[in-house]
């Protein structure tokens, strides 16, 4: 632990106003060389904004930033890079149609004697940087050919490829699996030991306690405080973030216990037989009953999202059959799925989820509206009522119902998406990573919501990378490996009465005797 001498980066009284939102309200922040400094806060607390204002993406309204004692005011990320601040932004910002190598070294490509780009060296350098992160792949291929997790690693590689004084990582681990996180932390530790100052934003408490030296908490655009990690209890941290007492996150399962009996009597909501799609998921069988919470577990890229997409009809199946409510369906499409009472919260909310230009109200009523005939629109009053109800229920932070969704923070956008589907009052709701990028409070709310839905007889298909959540919420967990359903954990029918817990799921995921 280096002695906390003079801070390398000093932010004083930073203020940033967006139309309708005061995103940063006089924030102070200090960063010392050779530390990993965690920046924590609820969704919309202003973490990303602090970073974007610091690096010149957004102009600041007032405040002072000092780097190495010099007052700085970068007007663009490139200017910030020039000053020695390297940043990996929250939404993975890369160019999918360029090669992996170029994405890592864009803007600072090695040149040969005549000033032309030296492609050979470039590929070598990119490969080296990735190797440092424990990733090995063909850097000449287009980035688009790789998964979102790889893209996140590439973004990080880009961040560390620059010899910077300050490295900022805004939620770098949200799409990474355990192995990749470990690699990243090894690299971060080495950089810290080399004297680099690192800002680390995440919602994973475990990770914060594993890697960080100090923690700064923001709430509603204001600084709550900065503490050495060792001196801040987890519970206190959460309370600082929320500004209130932690809601009861019971260690027990929130899933309904009444499921098994209903399973015998009721017809399944959906029943997939040999359903599959060439190139993305192998044929599988799956039944989901009313009131059941079925979890899908597996490593990144194991095909969980694909299962959800197939059942919702967003992708078309190439083999197998699907029965919904006892009837076999043909030409399955989202339109028909919605009519049949199936809802789908996608994993990629930017792409398949929210409609950024439309208002909160319109986004919430959209699915409801599209299910009605175009000549029977919901009245404005009715729309407002529905939207208002869910904004209140889910605690969506928005200035008004007419705010455009694109300006909400990531977590709040996710909640709007949830509201849209809850408004449909579905029979089955497919939640793909619903807690990704969501703060602790909201996470508990969503878990409670799942329990409520289940109690009300709604079936839930929960796709999540967080085994803890799966173990807590699900009545049954189905495990995928290599795009294939390989096992199921079903306490009610399991003769050996295996408990449904994290370690059991983990064992099944990791099981590879073949």
């Amino acid at each position, binding site marked *: 632990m280096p002695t906390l001498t003079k801070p390398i980066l000093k932010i004083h009284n930073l203020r940033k*106003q967006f*139309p*309708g*939102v*005061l995103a940063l*309200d006089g924030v102070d922040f200090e960063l010392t060389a050779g530390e990993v400094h965690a920046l924590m806060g609820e969704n*919309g607390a202003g973490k990303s904004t602090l970073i974007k204002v610091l690096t010149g993406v957004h102009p600041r309204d007032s405040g002072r930033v000092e780097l190495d004692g010099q007052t700085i005011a970068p007007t663009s990320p490139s200017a910030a890079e020039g000053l020695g601040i390297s940043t990996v932004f929250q939404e993975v910002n890369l160019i999918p149609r360029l090669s992996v190598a170029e994405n890592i070294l864009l803007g600072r490509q090695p040149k040969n004697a005549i000033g032309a780009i030296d492609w050979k060296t470039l590929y070598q350098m990119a490969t080296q940087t990735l190797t440092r992160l424990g990733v090995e792949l063909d850097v000449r291929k287009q980035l688009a050919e790789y998964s979102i997790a790889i893209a996140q690693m590439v973004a990080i590689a880009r961040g560390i490829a620059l010899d910077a004084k300050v490295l900022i990582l805004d939620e770098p681990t949200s799409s990474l699996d355990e192995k990749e996180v470990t690699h990243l932390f090894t690299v971060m530790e080495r950089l810290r030991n080399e004297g680099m100052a690192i800002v680390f934003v995440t919602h994973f408490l475990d990770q914060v306690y594993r890697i960080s030296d100090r923690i700064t908490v923001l709430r*509603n*655009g*204001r600084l709550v405080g900065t503490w050495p990690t060792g001196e801040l209890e987890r519970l206190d941290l959460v309370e600082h973030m929320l*500004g209130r007492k932690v809601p009861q996150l019971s260690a027990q399962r929130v899933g309904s216990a009444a499921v098994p009996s209903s399973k015998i009597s009721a017809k399944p909501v959906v029943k997939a037989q040999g359903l599959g799609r060439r190139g993305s998921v192998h044929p599988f069988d799956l039944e989901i009953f009313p009131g059941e919470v079925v979890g899908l577990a597996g490593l990144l890229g194991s095909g969980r999202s694909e299962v959800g997409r197939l059942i*919702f009809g*967003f992708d078309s199946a190439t083999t197998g059959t699907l029965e919904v409510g006892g009837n076999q369906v043909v030409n399955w499409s*989202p*339109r028909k*799925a*919605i*009519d049949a009472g199936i809802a*789908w919260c*996608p994993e990629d909310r930017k*792409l*398949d*989820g*929210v*409609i*950024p*230009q*439309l208002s909160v109200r*319109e986004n919430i009523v*959209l*699915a409801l*509206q*599209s*299910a*009605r005939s*175009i*000549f029977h*629109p*919901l009245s404005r009053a009715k729309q407002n009522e529905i939207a208002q109800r869910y904004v209140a229920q889910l*605690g969506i*932070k928005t*200035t008004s119902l007419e705010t455009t969704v694109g300006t909400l923070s990531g977590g709040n956008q996710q909640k709007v998406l949830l509201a*849209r589907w809850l408004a449909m009052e579905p029979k089955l709701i497919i939640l793909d990573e619903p807690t990704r990028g969501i703060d602790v409070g909201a996470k508990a709310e969503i878990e409670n919501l799942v329990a409520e839905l289940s109690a009300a007889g709604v079936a839930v298909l929960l796709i999540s990378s967080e085994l803890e959540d799966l173990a807590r919420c699900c009545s049954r967990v189905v495990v995928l490996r290599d795009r294939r359903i390989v096992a199921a954990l079903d306490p009610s029918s399991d003769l050996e009465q295996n408990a449904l817990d994290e370690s059991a799921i983990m064992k099944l995921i990791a099981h590879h005797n073949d």
Partner: protein
Amino acid sequence: MTQDVNLKKNRLGWQPPPAFYALLGLAALLLVNWFCIPSFFEIQVRDGNFYGSLIDVFNRGAIGVLLAIGMTLVVATGGVDLSVGSVVAICGAVVAIVLTTTQFGIVVAIAAGLLAAVGAGAVNGILITWLRIEPIIATLVLMVSGRGIAKYIAGEQTVAVPPELASPTLDFLGNGHFLGLPFPITIAAVLFVVTLLVVRRTSVGLLVESVGANPSASRACGINDTVVKLTVYVFAGFCAGLAGIIDLANIGIADPTNAGALSELDAIFAVLVGGTALTGGRFSLTGAVIGALLLQTLMTTLYTWGVPSDVAPVPKAIVILLVCLLQSPTLRSWLERTLRGNRKMGSRQVEASS
């Protein structure tokens, strides 16, 4: 919850309605005319009909308005239709040919013309939705070949509709009067009101906007984006067909080369000036109509001033640019910041004095 800080309403967060800047441009132009060409605002009654430059603006502008209405919905879905000018020519040629070479009469001729226009729109829609060709390219194909088709239909010449075949219906469509106003104005107004009602009183508007803003997410909401897109291109074709008929009726001659030439650019301009972004999503029909009228006012003004039509594009470009700059978010936020700076100073003084 203690959200009051975040929810503090920004007093300067007022967003003008999309049509605001087009209206501002129109007002400025009219003001210039007010001082420079007083006769511009004179309206006389001749033979029971209104007569004057302003009436001309609406009358000549009717075609632009029709095209802009169709184009608005297309642009709102994130597309663009470059072929409308050619469709105007095709429709005119079909009507004229059916009238002059067959015995079917005016109603069938007009129906055939509209059918051709709607068909052209459907072709655009199919290329864009089923074959997934980019809208600019797909409609470029019809823009290029459409003039050829119109020429081919017309037999490589202009087709004059003799008065005995044109009157009275066709002539009335182009030159008749209703409530003392030229009939094209009525057609444009009716189409505008009907479209506005359909779009805003049903959920069509919302569907179009969501498809334009995020097609993939719209599909996930159960919206059939293929149908939505197909419909707007067909509608744009229909609007172009109406414009073609008015154009033909107005002069009694179908001219495949010149009918609707460059009108697609004017229509796109009207839509954009009216506050609809080329990237799709939110749209404003009223804005587009005002945009079209702004263009026509400008052209009529220039003709009245005697500016040669060849040089007329220069002031047109300047007006386009000015209106666009007014809409620019950068310029707006700069203005806002300057204003806010002043206010902040004001409020500080208040604090100090209290």
